[in-house]
Structure formats: C-alpha cells, structure tokens
C-alpha cells in the first residue's frame, strides 16, 4: 500500500490539553485520486490537514509522502517536495497585487523574477483571475480570494494539493464556477484532497470520501457508500437518525 499511496497516514494523533483533536487516523491516498475529507464542524479536519502539511507536529503516528517519512517536517520543506495546501480562512499577502501573490508560489522553483511573474500570469489565466492580475489582493471578493489561494498553491507545481474549504462562503453560482476549476486541476494529474462541507461538490467531484467525526475516521468509500452509512448519518444528525431515516 505504501508503494502506491502518494500520502499515507499511520495512526496519526494529536491532543490539545485534554482534547483529543485527532486520534488514531490512518488513511492512504493513492496517486491521482480526487479525495474528499468530510465531517461535522469541529471534527478535526483542519487539524488533520495541519498535521499532514507540517504546520502541527503529531503526538503519535507517522505521515508518509511519496514513500518518505515527513512526520513533523516544516511545511516549507514539504512544499518543496510538492505538498501544497490552501487555508480555510484565506490568507492573501494583502498589500501585494494578485500577480505578486501568485509569483511568490511560482518562485518556489523559479529564481528569476521575470519567469515567476510570467508563470503567475499563466496560472491566473487558468483560474480565471487574469482580469484581476494588477489589483491588490485585499480588493478581491471572497470568491476571488479563494481562487487566489488556489492559484498561489498551484503555482508551486504541487503533486498533492490539500484544499481546505475552497467553496465555503461562495454563492451557488460561484460554487458552480469553482467545481470545474478543481476538476481541471485533478485532470492535470495533481492528486487532490479536499475538506468540503458543500455536499453537492463532494458528490460531483470526489472519487473517494473519508469521514472524520470527533477526531476519528468513521467511514471511507465512494460518496454514495459514505452518505448511506449509518455511522455517518448519526455523526451529522445525531444518534438514532439513521434508523429514523430508514423508516
């Protein structure tokens, strides 16, 4: 399994004080997957992303990326190896233009300023940000900032992209525009794992879904399998809900 999986977690766990935010999570994300990580609020999804990308060090367990143990390694080193992430609360370099923002990502593999700016133009065109290239990032709408977040991560030419709620805060039309963007990224061969609450997107996009509740994985499978799983329904809707729905 470790040979084929791009990202593999083994019994990963972290506690904050007495709170076990993530506990005994193991999963294997094969190369080329478009996976989704879902779960109720406070389930530990973002914490799990932080453990994978190196922003947090786990108390227990190991993280393997492309067969290498990267447990607790700094995020900038992981980014260099092709593990990129976006943030749920968008984090633009507000004082800089959209082009400059994306160029920071492009600079990861390009030393020349000119080449990085040109690469930024290319990524922006791909994500529909071309008209906004010269705007300060602070002037973008929420949808624009989500795209920028994605563009900056994509400019690092990642092998694995961890997307933390890129659809949150978008209206239905904007969601409809964003879904093909994510699909195009996956079609280019980038392995994607997305945290998402918008089930329409999860059903449309994901080939495999993992469900996290109270820090533990409770189900994994295709979107259809997972949404009919009794444990999953109860995690979202409360105990007994699965039985009531079945009636």
């Amino acid at each position, binding site marked *: 399994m470790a040979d084929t999986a791009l990202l593999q977690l083994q019994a990963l766990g972290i506690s904050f004080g007495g709170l076990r935010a993530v506990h005994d999570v193991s999963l294997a994300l094969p190369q080329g997957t478009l996976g989704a990580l879902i779960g109720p609020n406070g389930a530990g999804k973002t914490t799990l992303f932080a453990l994978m990308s190196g922003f947090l060090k786990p108390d227990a367990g190991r993280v393997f990326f492309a067969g290498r143990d990267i447990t607790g390694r*700094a995020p900038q080193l992981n980014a260099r190896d092709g593990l*990129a992430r976006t943030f749920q609360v968008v984090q633009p370099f507000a004082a800089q233009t959209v082009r400059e923002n994306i160029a920071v990502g492009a*600079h990861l593999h390009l030393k020349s300023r000119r080449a990085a700016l040109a690469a930024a133009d290319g990524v922006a065109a791909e994500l529909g940000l071309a008209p906004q290239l010269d705007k300060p990032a602070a002037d973008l709408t929420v949808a624009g900032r989500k795209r920028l977040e994605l563009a900056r991560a994509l400019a690092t030419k990642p092998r694995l992209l961890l997307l933390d709620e890129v659809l949150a805060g978008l209206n239905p039309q904007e969601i409809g525009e964003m879904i093909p963007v994510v699909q195009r990224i996956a079609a280019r061969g980038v392995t994607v794992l997305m945290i998402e609450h918008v089930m329409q997107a999860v059903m449309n996009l994901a080939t495999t879904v993992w469900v996290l509740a109270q820090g533990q994985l409770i189900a994994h499978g295709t979107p259809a399998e997972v949404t009919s799983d009794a444990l999953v329904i109860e995690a979202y809707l409360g105990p007994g809900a699965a039985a009531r729905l079945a009636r």
Partner: protein
Amino acid sequence: MKADLAAIAAFVLCIGVFTAATDSGVLLNALMMALYAALLAQAWNLLGGYGGQFSFGHALFFGCGAYASAIAQMSGGVNAWLALALGVAAAALLGLAVGALTFRYGLKGSYFALVTLAFAEVFRILALSLDFTGGGVGLMLPLKPAAANLQFVSRKGFIALVAGFVVLALLATAALRHSRLGAQLQAVRDNEDAARAVGVDPLRTKLAAITLSAAVTGAAGAFYLQVFQYIDPNIVFGPGISIEALVGAIVGGLGTLWGPLLGAAVLHLLADSTRNLFGELPGLNLVIYGTVLVLIVMFMPRGLAGLLRSLSAAWKARRG
C-alpha cells in the same frame, strides 16, 4: 527596475550639481547630515519596511560599525578605508547573530522590538565598562586629515562618501524589490503561514534581511566616526540612533524605495530649521518637531511616499 535605475541616476546628478554649486558650509553640512540620516532610515527600512520586523535597537549595529572601525584603526593600525569595511562586516555578522538568536525562536512584533532594544542596551553597558572600548570616555580618532585616511578636509569629500553609501543602499533596495528574496521577504511580512505553505523559509529570508540591514547601519556608524572623530557608548549605542533610524523610515513610507530618504531628509531639515529659527526659545523647536511628527503619523499612514503616490494618482485622474 529600469525606472528605478533612472531615478537613482537623476538623484546622483542632483547631489552632484548641488555640491558643485555651493561652498556654503551650512548648506553642505545640512546635505551631509540629511544623507547620513537617510542612510540610517534606508537600513532600517530593509528589515522593518520589507521584512516587517520592527527593530528598536538599530543602534546596536550602528555602534558595532563605529567601534569596530575605531578599534581597528587605533589599536590595529589598520587603514581607515579598510577599517570602514571591517566595521560594515562586523555589523553584518552581529546582525546575523542577533537574527539567528531572535528569529529562530519565532520572536516577532513587540517582542522582537524589545529584544533588539535589550541587545543595544547590553552593548552600550559593555562598551561603558570594557577597557578596549575606552569605557565612558569613549574613543577619539587621531586627527590625520587626508583622503587616504578617510578624513576629508572639505565637507564635499564626506558628502561623496555618504552619497555613495546612500546610492548603494538604493541599488540594494531596488534589486531586492525585483528579486525572489524580496518577494519572499514581503510574503513573510504579510503572512508568515501562507508564505511557509508555498515553500518560503521564513528564517532564511529574515536572516538575509537583518544581515543586509545591519551592514548598511554599520556603514552609517563608521561614517559617523570619520566625520566626528569621536564616539562614546551613550551616543552610538544609545536609543537616539535607534529612534532616528525608525522614525525616518516610518515617516517616509515603509517598504518603499524613496520613502526613507524622503522622510529622513524632511525630518532632518525640519529639525535644523526649527533649531535655527527658534534658537532663543530653547525647547520650542522640539515641540514643533514633535507636533509635525504626530500630524504626519496621524494623517499619512503610508508616509510621505504614500501621500505623494495618492496626490499623483489624484492628479492623473483629474487630467484623464
């Protein structure tokens, strides 16, 4: 980059013409001191403006440059030009060391400011109590007027020297603005976590910035030594220097190429002219200086450079 280089060339031309056109000691002195203040502000801007790390103790690097150069000349018998280079190198090394100690542990914001202040104070007290720094008496550079000894008979020689440093600092800043390091430094300034997520090493970029900033500050310290030929711990390691460096940069406009030069020059001319105008009422000049400072900070949050940019944008909008 081309526009920046053209502006820097025009600046050199202006300084050259002004210096050639006048022999007034007052004017030349004012120009020299304005350029010296600009150099300090530019140095601070490299770390504070582009790196977002607000140092309250740049006197540390200033004093290091001044003392290293003085000791090399007086105890080591080193030529003054070489001593100046040694002063710059010593300040750069000290910057790297202080950066390694503070940034490694993730100190930022007011904590970084306080630690830099503490470092400068420790060095001030060390310089006051150690023998080879002359203690509280300070160090007096022997008078050997000759260009070879970096002791120019005319102010014009010193102006050429400090203007050269200012131009080097301008070129370094312009190069930084158009480089990967500059992009990464500003990314870390604006959002460190987002920068790390796209592969930027915050420690490395901050260390580069503090080393460069300290080197330029050290050059200002070594220049100060050559002009006044006397240094003591309370002057060169004192908080006055640290404040002069940051005020010029902040008033002028953080993270801009010309802001620090503009801010330092305006503040310096203001201080000079109020002192001359209100000489018979001691203290009034400081009141006016302080008032203007408060007004600038209140009404021009992006500094003088930001004000100029807004004005030119408004003018263009009216014409267009």
